[in-house]
């Protein structure tokens, strides 16, 4: 009989995540034979947005996630621009890219050093205090000089991600969220002082990325080569693309596309459906495109175990995130695994930081930043972009000038989704299945797989758990 372990809370992610794995000995090793991923918090943003001024969505949706508010602000600005048939000014577009880019830098640095790295180093004797103790310890964790150097970089990275936010605030006014994103661009002005200040901060960050972050990831990859063979998941990739390089968005730093059944293919967002067979929603809420999506809960639905819907492209499970973007863009095609995700994320950090330096040259000092336009009252808009952790889509309909429907499909819905109507497990569930867990009391292998996706549960706005699940065997909950 397999042992089922409920790992909750799964910490060092954004939001409330619970992972349940069933472990059974097969071929002489304890392996994960089944995995279920569930979020444990619901807020109802899509309901809250109904009846509001569409422009409020730019600010409300930023509050979905405090790690990637800028991505929601970007998606929402693009949604409104698509609905109102407005294109941003060049200055406004570049400023928004710079703010979003700055948040990519802080998010990726934060992910590697502060969320993921503690799974690989034994900090005993280095950080013998909260919040780093108590800790999980496995024999393969780094110790000694290697651990000491990474702990020092952990501390240095705290300052670096702060500087990335300082950089973003140059055109955001403040970080983590911004009041400057608007339909047609960005409210801020472009001054020499802001451009020079941004460039100085960016130079420091690029130095850190080149001389510390990327070497650290390479070191980790060389010391944990086994993680290139673990945690593949579905192998399909999806990217909406991000960082528009022209007004129409036809050119992007990281392009739109997908990789399905080993073939590169284009993306048509109308082929996305959200399934609810394993989610606590009425059947009528399922098999719908986001633009016609509804969300009617059914807490007693038989067979359901999650409140995350299961988004699928042409019925297939896809992974989203930095690896998917770099894969689709042709920048990284070594493989799909835990370590490939960490490496691709670091390489993407460099790519974005280097591009930002060029974008600073494109700003026209004193030039227009916002384009005014009319706001037609009964319209439909779509905004497709990328959060640091993957493809993000907003869909909106308005009626008499108010939001009548607002649907959001987040990266973590793709990655952490449950089984769909066809019985296909979500990406993280698939990535966990088959991994060896040496000591179920120290489930560090599970954490390494989950953390490689950088899950963001607050973003999975559908997630809710109003009903108790059937009791499963839970290891080690103290009396």
């Amino acid at each position, binding site marked *: 009989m397999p042992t089922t372990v409920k790992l909750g*809370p799964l910490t060092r992610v954004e*939001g409330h995540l619970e992972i349940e794995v069933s472990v059974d000995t097969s071929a002489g090793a304890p392996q994960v034979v089944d995995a279920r991923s569930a979020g444990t918090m619901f807020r*109802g943003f899509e309901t809250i947005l109904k009846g509001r001024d569409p422009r409020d969505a730019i600010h409300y949706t930023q509050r979905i996630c405090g790690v990637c508010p800028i991505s929601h602000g970007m998606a929402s600005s693009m949604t409104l621009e698509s609905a109102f048939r407005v294109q941003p000014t060049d200055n406004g577009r570049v400023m928004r890219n710079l703010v979003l880019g700055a948040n990519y830098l802080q998010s990726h640095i934060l992910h590697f050093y502060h969320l993921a790295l503690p799974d690989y180093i034994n900090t005993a004797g280095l950080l013998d205090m909260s919040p780093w103790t108590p800790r999980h310890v496995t024999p393969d964790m780094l110790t000694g000089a290697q651990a000491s150097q990474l702990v020092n970089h952990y501390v240095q990275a*705290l300052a670096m991600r*702060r500087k990335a936010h300082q950089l973003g605030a140059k055109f955001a006014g403040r970080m*983590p969220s911004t009041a400057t994103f608007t339909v047609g661009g960005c409210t801020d002005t472009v001054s020499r002082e802001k451009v020079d200040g941004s460039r100085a901060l960016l130079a420091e960050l690029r130095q850190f990325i080149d001389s510390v972050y990327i070497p650290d990831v390479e070191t980790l990859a060389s010391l944990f080569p086994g993680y290139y063979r673990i945690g593949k998941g579905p192998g399909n990739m999806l990217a909406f693309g991000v960082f528009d390089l022209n007004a129409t968005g036809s050119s992007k730093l990281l392009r739109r596309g997908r990789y399905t059944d080993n073939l590169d293919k284009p993306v048509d967002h109308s082929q996305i459906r959200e399934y609810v067979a394993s989610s606590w929603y009425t059947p009528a809420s399922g098999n719908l495109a986001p633009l016609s999506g509804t969300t009617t809960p059914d807490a007693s639905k038989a067979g359901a175990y999650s409140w995350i819907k299961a988004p699928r492209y042409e019925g297939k499970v896809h992974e989203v995130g930095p690896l998917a973007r770099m894969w689709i863009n042709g920048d990284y095609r070594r493989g799909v695994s835990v370590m490939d995700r960490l490496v691709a994320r670091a390489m993407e950090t460099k790519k974005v930081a280097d591009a930002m330096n060029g974008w600073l040259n494109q700003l026209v000092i004193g030039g227009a930043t916002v384009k005014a336009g009319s706001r037609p009252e009964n319209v439909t808009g779509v905004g497709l972009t990328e959060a640091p952790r993957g493809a993000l889509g907003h869909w909106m309909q308005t009626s008499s000038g108010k939001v009548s429907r607002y649907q959001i499909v987040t990266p973590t819905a793709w990655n952490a989704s449950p089984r769909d109507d066809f019985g296909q497990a979500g990406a993280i569930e698939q990535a966990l299945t088959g991994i060896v867990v040496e000591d179920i009391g120290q*489930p560090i292998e599970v954490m390494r797989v989950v953390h490689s996706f950088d899950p963001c549960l*607050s973003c999975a706005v559908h997630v809710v*758990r109003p009903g108790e699940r059937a009791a499963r065997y839970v290891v080690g909950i103290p009396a």
Partner: protein
Amino acid sequence: MSLTRRDFLKASASIAAAFGIQGAEALAREGGLSVVWFQAQACTGCSVSLLNSIYYNTIDDLLLNTLDLNYHPNLMAASGSLAQTVAQNAYSQGNFVLVVEGAVPTGASGKYCYLWPGMTAVNAIKTFAAKTPYVMAVGTCASFGGVNAAPPNPTQAVSVQTLLGTSKKVINIAGCPTHPDWIVGTVAHMLKYASVPTLDSKGRPTMFFNRSVHDICPLKGTEPAKALGQPGCLKELGCRGPETRADCPTRRWNTGAANTYGKDWCIGSRGPCHGCTEPKFSELRPFNKA
């Protein structure tokens, strides 16, 4: 780099005395000020903002030398049952500061938010708050309900103060997100002056929330802007500076140096104030006027 903690006994004793509780000296702990940080309906934005701290202390200084941050879901090494053990040990020892980020959903018997299997946010916050006189609500969600409690409030989200009732005074560090200085400065004030900072009628420290944004805004009295992106006072565009108390116009955001105010802030970037430190932040009223 030294990773040993400074002796925080004296300061911990001061904060204990500040709250005027019996057995105050019990807070004097070798490891620093004990903190249990729960996230209910949080987006993590206030934790991320705290990571930007530098004016009073940097976050590494706080974690290494000042705080004993027992439980924080984003930062702690432990997961699963080991993480639950951390919370339960802190509970057993007592003498901790309970920090809550996010609103508390009371609908569906609290089941809209679980902190760990079987433990709703409602239950966890009530249980832990009963064990300590020190409860800080970080951010506008925890302080006033925030965006989670926006109409029609689908999860019946409430503030920490509403959840706990008036018998327990909650310090509200409002803001969506809150400013790192408002959190750290409040703690620093308590440690330095051995007193809780004066709170306004909404539970916010007056040292940060004494005057309206408009009152101290450098754009006050300038020719009003008629459209976003134009210079001037933003009041005709929906700026909520006049009804919002916060020291953003002077303190500003995302500074890069200790003891130095920042350069950037919403209005400085021609973004109208959304009133994010106020209970009315998320009411059904458009942010944009024009």
